């Protein structure tokens, strides 16, 4: 089925927690006006979208709770906890760890401990753009460590999920972030953005490479009064991404914001993003083979490949 809009992310405040690659540089609280929140929820209801509220680190005024609870939703920053480090304990079943590559490598054992407690951990690397190929071995080793932990847990008939290793084992096609395609973000100013990162960039006045006809830093793709209008929307889709459509690192975030930041084109990933995703893909293959050896029935076997960046084999397509 062709991907379609399914999720509406509502940033409740300028300081709502960052839960993905991009850090939130905004430090001044600016709560979404109650009226805007109501309109956003109404939009979500009419478009049949699952709503994800992104919370700030402070308690919301009581009148907001009633409005929020008027619709089925997920609370990012409450039910789904987001950490910028590795916590000692998993206080929820589902948590997001936003880490630098170095933090991920050095904290691999702490992450391993958390895997024994949580049902799902999402690792989000916050400095993909700084990844050096010299870090490859260390990253591979960290993935191997976590593979060993996962294998042990699977042997105990526990099956925790670690996005960068277990997601790929389940997938048979690309399942990426989907910014602008399967999800869209509303910021406290009532405007739509492909994802929160584009709102942060706009607020920080970072040079606009999206709506280039305007000389300001505007990154919005519509507003609640006029609806969503994404110029060149086709370039967000997989079939318009020459590298990604030939790739089988199906779990890759395929982060549009990182694409734009690193290669200046929405549909083209950087080498860093590709290599990291392939190291994870290959580690997922190792885990799959190990599980097969201990008797697990494997449906979608991940093939052996010789490249880490689809750019290197693009001529074959």
């Amino acid at each position, binding site marked *: 089925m062709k991907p379609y809009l399914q999720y509406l992310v509502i940033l409740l405040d300028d300081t709502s927690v960052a839960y993905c690659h991009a850090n939130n540089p905004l430090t001044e609280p600016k709560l979404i006006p109650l009226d805007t929140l109501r309109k956003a929820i109404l939009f979500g209801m009419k478009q049949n979208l699952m709503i994800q509220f992104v919370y700030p680190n402070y308690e919301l005024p009581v009148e907001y709770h009633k409005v929020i609870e008027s619709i089925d939703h997920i609370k990012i920053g409450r039910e789904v906890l987001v950490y910028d480090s590795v916590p000692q304990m998993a206080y929820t079943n589902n948590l997001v760890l936003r880490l630098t590559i170095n933090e991920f490598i050095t904290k691999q054992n702490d992450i391993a401990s958390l895997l024994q407690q949580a049902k799902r951990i999402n690792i989000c690397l916050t400095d993909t753009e700084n990844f050096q190929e010299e870090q490859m071995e260390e990253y591979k080793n960290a993935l191997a460590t976590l593979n060993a932990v996962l294998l042990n847990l699977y042997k105990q008939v526990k099956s925790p999920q670690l996005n960068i290793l277990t997601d790929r084992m389940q997938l048979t096609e690309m399942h990426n972030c989907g910014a602008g395609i399967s999800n869209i973000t509303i910021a406290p100013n009532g405007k739509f953005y492909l994802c929160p990162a584009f709102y942060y960039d706009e607020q920080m006045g970072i040079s606009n490479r999206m709506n*280039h*006809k305007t000389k300001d830093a505007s990154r919005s793709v519509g507003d609640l009064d006029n609806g969503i209008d994404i*110029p060149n929307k086709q*370039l967000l889709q997989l079939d318009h991404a020459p590298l990604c459509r030939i790739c089988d690192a199906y779990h890759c975030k395929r982060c549009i914001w990182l694409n734009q930041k690193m290669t200046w084109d929405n*549909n*083209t990933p950087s080498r*860093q993003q590709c290599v990291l995703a392939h190291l994870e893909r290959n580690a997922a293959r190792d885990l799959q083979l190990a599980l097969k050896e201990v008797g697990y029935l494997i449906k979608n076997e991940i093939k052996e490949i010789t490249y880490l960046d689809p750019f290197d084999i693009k001529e074959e397509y």
Partner: protein
Amino acid sequence: MRKLKIKTGDSGWQEGMAKSITFIVTKDCQLACKYCYLVGKNEKERMSFDVAKAAIDYILDRENKQNFAFESVVWEFIGGEPFLEIDLIDRICDYIKQELFRRDHHWFNSYRFSFSTNGINYHSDKVQKFIEKNRQHLSIGITIDGTRRKHDLNRIWKGNGPERGSYDDVVRNIPLWLQQFPGAGTKVTISSEDIPYICESVLHLYELGIRQVNINCVFEVVWKEGDDMLFEEQLVQLADIIIDKGYYQDYSCSFFTEHMGKPMDCKYQNQNWCGAGKMLSIDAKGNFYPCTRFAQYSLRDKEAWIIGNINDGIDNNKLRPFLTLDRCTQSSPECIDCEVAEGCAWCQGENFDAAKTHTVYERATAICKMHKARVRANNYYWNKLYRKLELEGKREEYEQNKKQSNDVIC
């Protein structure tokens, strides 16, 4: 009986096997051509020898490495008008030759210096001395747009006061140029105003002795209602004369090619049109670009697409969108389904400049109706020529001997 010949456009030197490296030596020009896409020309940005030297060192240090693994190299000099900087160019070329030799670089036996000039300074002592010195490794194209009235309509001298055309200043150098480069071709640009003069202009260039006329319509949004019909009329007139007078045997005009006007397949005919990203351009500040058209002086609405510089090298991430480009991904469904898609050209720089977002993946289609008109005239040309050959009993001979055609666009 004279053996049948049909002249086709010549392929570029070592086409596909040569790395094209362009030095934007100056952004100044004596002329202010009305259709020029260089919106930021100026007298200040002149390349220094040190910047050129640093760029050459960077490039030659990477023999056979990423971005430079090519059998041959074309060192191109562009402006503005490159020959305004002939002293600098001479020094740069000397340095290139010395370094290729000193490093025993494989390009030493396979290099070209290439120029596209307005021809005004062509006869000067300095330019002539340079030509003499580098004759075996030179390609020079002089731009002359056709008849005086067509040429002077657009190619006028810079400055205030009454408009002054440059035809006389260029045409006087054509005999010397053709004597030195007998097979050379000229590049003619068509904008809206000069459509009525296409036929006479191509024939005039033939009369001047230029056997290869590379001609194309500008890619920008300039076309008016009815331009396509007028364009078609001009091309049909030209087709009649070329065929009736037998010019097709010794002269070529890139508007007419057998390889255009058919639907295209997204799997087997999906190549990108232009070489942006495979080329490298360097400006006076030492910045690198995927093609000159991505430098700021070429862009109306967008920021320059700088892929690196002589100090930090090339950021390969900034090249990835160019090196993964294909025809269908950047084309609209209308272009993909077009029944006469074959031969329809685009300029990646104009695509970028005209795009709604910051992308090289949105194909500009301002040229659409002109392409369709060209296809109709081209079909007419080949139907008429084939019939003539059949009636003369030469069709079979032609089919056996024909070469692949070549469209020269940018």
